[in-house]
């Protein structure tokens, strides 16, 4: 690759400025709404009314400080964090265990089990939400985070398994045989070899599960009616409708609510592409 990079680069050099220009434009378009939300939080309401597309004249940090000082915001952050972390943990744990069985065991019904999980890709939560709500209600889990977490785990499993199974299948059989010769059971092989080796794919499915949970809207909308149990998306919406006149504060609340997922994602972005490579490769 490196040996051949030189002739290639020469033919590229003409278009390079165009490439950077296109990239800049795209990044700009992507960032405009985000920047609008963040900057809006630094403005006053009268500024926003008079000049909706302007920059802050005097930077008001009051909006942000108000939000950061409110119990409501932090309670919703805590609810979202608890729900996302527990969801992610169980999605990874259950998904890895089931994928290990699907990838490394040979038994009747394996194909059917795999088909069942992949069919789950076609059952988005939207279809199941009404009966799911009734099920959760009958279990007495409405207004509790458990009522959100458990269905989230279930709905995240298909993607997790579709990504993990090819990854686990790619672990060479020789490794397993060597482990067996050394007296390692298959469960031991799972703990000592599979778990450490599949870290890249696990990080990918973990991030996807975390982000999906952090942003989840429809399920909490149905399950959580009590404001104390609200997660951030519901909280942002409730805040926006309650303080609809106070646009600046709404924008401050909104921008603070997106920080955790953004930080989490940018820390692991590289891993996402790496982990997906196995799953989408044709």
């Amino acid at each position, binding site marked *: 690759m490196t040996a051949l990079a030189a002739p290639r680069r020469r033919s590229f050099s003409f278009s390079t400025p165009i490439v950077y220009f296109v*990239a800049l434009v795209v990044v700009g378009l992507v960032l405009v709404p985000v920047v609008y939300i963040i900057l809006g939080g630094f403005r006053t309401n009268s500024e926003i009314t008079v000049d909706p597309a302007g920059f802050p004249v005097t930077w008001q940090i009051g909006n942000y400080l108000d939000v950061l000082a409110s119990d409501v915001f932090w309670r919703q952050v805590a609810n979202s964090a608890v729900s996302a972390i527990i969801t992610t943990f169980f999605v990874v744990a259950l998904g890895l265990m089931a994928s290990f069985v699907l990838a490394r065991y040979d038994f*009747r*019904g394996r194909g059917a089990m795999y088909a069942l999980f992949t069919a789950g890709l076609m059952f988005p939560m939207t279809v199941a939400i009404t009966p799911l709500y009734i099920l959760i209600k009958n279990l007495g889990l409405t207004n509790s985070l458990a009522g959100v977490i458990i269905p989230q785990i279930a709905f995240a499993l298909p993607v997790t398994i579709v990504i993990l199974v090819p990854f686990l299948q790619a672990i060479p059989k020789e490794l397993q045989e060597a482990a067996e010769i050394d007296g390692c059971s298959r469960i031991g092989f799972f703990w000592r070899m599979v778990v450490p080796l599949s870290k890249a794919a696990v990080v990918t499915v973990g991030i996807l599960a975390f982000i999906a949970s952090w942003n989840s809207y429809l399920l909490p909308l149905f399950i959580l009616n009590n404001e104390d149990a609200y997660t951030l998306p519901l909280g942002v919406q409730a805040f926006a409708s309650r303080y609809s006149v106070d646009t600046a504060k709404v924008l401050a609340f909104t921008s603070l609510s997106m920080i955790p997922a953004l930080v989490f994602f940018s820390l692991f972005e590289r891993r996402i592409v790496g982990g997906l490579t196995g799953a989408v490769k044709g």
Partner: protein
Amino acid sequence: MTSISDSPRIARAPHVDLEATGGDATATPPVRRRKPRGTSWRTRLEIAALAGPALIVFVTFVILPVALAAYYGFFSWAGYGPATDFVGLRNYVTILQDEAFIEALRHNVIIAVLSLVIQGPIAIGLALLLNRKMRGQSVIRVLIFVPYVISEVVVGLGWSLMLQSNGAANGFLEKLGLENLTQDWLSDPNLAIWSLLLIITWKYVGFAVILFLAGLQGIPDELSEAAAIDGASYWQVQRLVVLPLLGPTIKIWAFLSIIGSFQLFDLVYIIWGQYVSSTAGTSTMATYMVANGRNAGSYGYGNAVAVIMFLISLIIALLYQRFLLRRSTDGALTEKKTGKKS
């Protein structure tokens, strides 16, 4: 390594096998296999212990609700107590005769088609761009994925504030001296669905780019290099070598995109609410379901809408798999050389 490429085709009778693997995994009768040792009770116990929890959670909270929806769809039911008022197919007849539903379905179709047409070329172009060695590449990759990471609520709120008639979009146009271009982006029925498509593109194109990038990474550099040595230009290489090899990934993305379009709920519900969406021409089957089901207290009716949505998705999925996806899922899900530790 054993291949499970046949698995998608065994989908015919999942329920039968489900009992065998889920509730009863330990009783699976011994079958012919390479390692007879593997049939021991210990292995069966391992399978049950490892796959059991995932199966139980999945069946209880994904499969069962879908089955329940099919059941409740035949009742007129307010959501509490046992459903006793059996109405047969009346819910379905009402839904299919309701112009509001047909309208919503039409919007879903428009969104599904235009999402493919708009996002596909943009995402492929960006993925090819970002697959090249360039400075700042990793930063750009992160930034392009940012909208996907932001929750629908934040996206909906931000965009609706920007696009409302006295919002930033019109304010910006006025600053440029283009007052006559200012519009009611969200409430004009001729424009609203385009605004929605703009927001959808903004939000989800990053996901397509990441998928395509992952697909591109799986294409060996040697192929493009060989073509380049044979005198192919950059565009010829992309068009004749890279794009065909990216085909399977594109098909998977298109599948996910179509299914997602038919289930679209969050953005519409957040931006337009349950009532405005129908007058603005952006209602979807899912917003129709929530507005006429849960919010109206008619849970039986809502379930019937869910069943119709599910059937539409299922038919699309089966057709897609039958005609387009089979070869590529076989490739994608069973590819031998995948998952190198990178």
